[in-house]
């Protein structure tokens, strides 16, 4: 399959490949896709107290379009607020990378990955706050 220049650029020079500490309460992890379908994306975001995305990292098992889509969204979400990041649509990703119809699912997966990562962070934060409001002061264990 012939790819557009932007896919090739992200594929050959992927941005923000890596791993953030998933135990860190300020980090949200989204793992979407399935090995049987040929693509799995893991997107991680580190979110500051002001709700801004400070850092984003990805690892992806998948074709060139899947890798490019995840690389692109790490660039896009950095510096955005959580609410802004949630407005990113798969169609924007597909358009930016000029994905052919057969590869649209890669952009859908990237959108899902953002949502999953932020949802994970929100869940962690809710749990944390619940604990803070509990009677006993929270004991933080150093790890």
């Amino acid at each position, binding site marked *: 399959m012939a790819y557009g220049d932007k896919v090739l650029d992200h594929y050959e020079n992927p941005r923000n490949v890596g791993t953030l500490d998933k135990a860190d309460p300020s980090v949200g992890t989204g793992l979407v896709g*399935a090995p049987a379908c040929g693509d799995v994306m893991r997107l991680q975001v580190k979110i500051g107290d002001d709700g801004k995305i400070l850092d984003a990292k990805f690892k992806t098992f998948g074709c060139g379009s899947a890798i490019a889509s995840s690389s692109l969204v790490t660039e896009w979400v950095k510096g955005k607020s959580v609410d802004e990041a949630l407005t990113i649509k798969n169609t924007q990703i597909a358009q930016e990378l000029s994905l052919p119809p057969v590869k649209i699912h890669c952009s859908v997966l990237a959108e899902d990955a953002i949502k999953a990562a932020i949802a994970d962070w929100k869940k962690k934060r809710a749990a944390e706050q619940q604990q803070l409001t509990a009677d006993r002061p929270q004991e933080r264990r150093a790890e």
Partner: protein
Amino acid sequence: MVKVPIYMDNNATTPLDPRVLEAMMPYLTTEFGNAASRSHAFGWKAEEAVQKAREQIADLIGGNEKEIVFTSGATESDNLAIKGVAEFYKEKGNHIITTRTEHKAVLDTCKRLERQGFEVTYLDVDKYGRVSAEQVKNALTDKTILVSIMFANNEIGTVQPIAEIGAVVKERGIVFHCDAVQGIGKLPFDVEQMKVDLVSISAHKFYGPKGIGALWVRRKPRVRIAPIIDGGGHERGMRSGTLNVPAIVGFGAAAEIAKREMPEEGLRTGKLRQRLQDFLFAHLDHLELNGHPEHRLPGNLNVSFAFVEGEALMMAIKNVAVSSGSACTSASLEPSYVLRACGVSEDLAHTSIRFGIGRFNTEEEVDFVGKYVVDQVTKLRAMSPLYEMAKEGIDLSKIEWAAH
């Protein structure tokens, strides 16, 4: 330094051997006659050249030149064999036996016949892609009119026990068709030893031109097929249409070279395959060899590189032309049905790469490809969440993945 891009997809097609082109040239230029023209020298020369090619091709498979029916290629040969037998013998029965790993030219032809009322048994294969003569024997019924089983598989290179199956089928007087496209010219194939009745052959798989193939049709005892193309009654009525003389001449020349050089070439490509395989397995973990370790085409290597998607790997090694069983390389988004039939899981099927080493590949190229693949797989695995999880000891099969 090797010259890139490197062509290592010789199971898809092979380059034309320069010696073959040389044999073809006169028939592309001055000797343009129609082999069916009986009244002048132009026709006689063309007919003579076709006759020689028939002998060269028949000689490669131990048959008689009168048994060669030229076609446009192996897809047509498979269609002609299966539809031709089904049509001719339909009064005798309506049952056909084949395997799950056949080429689509066989499987889709069988599917069409099923819609017309024929019954088809698709034999399961073992994890190496093999069927046994015993399986075929057990599947035969009073209604069976045709058994169609390939010599060697195009994806995984596995060679079927054709001679053993042939013995079982012959005993019952049933027609036995063999799609021998991938094996012929690479491994010895003798129609008497194999006890076959119909054999599909394609020139471009062994350094001949594209667009030409043959169906070998046994004469003793005579096997009958109904034609699927009607017209001027060429090829003893089995396949009408003006013969493609230059391509047929090339087909013949390629067959002669293949026969002469097969022992040496098979050994050489087999060694190169083993060299590549050994290098990859020595430098990477989590690899699976697809296909049979011994009963396989000498130049075929099919490996699953777990945790690295096949199409992404092909992009990463873009200076080397190979194939993948990954869904992303097909329009259907389904991974290889051949690997699935061998029981290879969907996730591993997505990570498979087929290397096809041929006549013109060198040891230097193989070494280059080996290092290149190791580097790129390592790079892609560093980017793979699955590889990271596997390294952490997480059992990926225990995770509930959301199918999409």
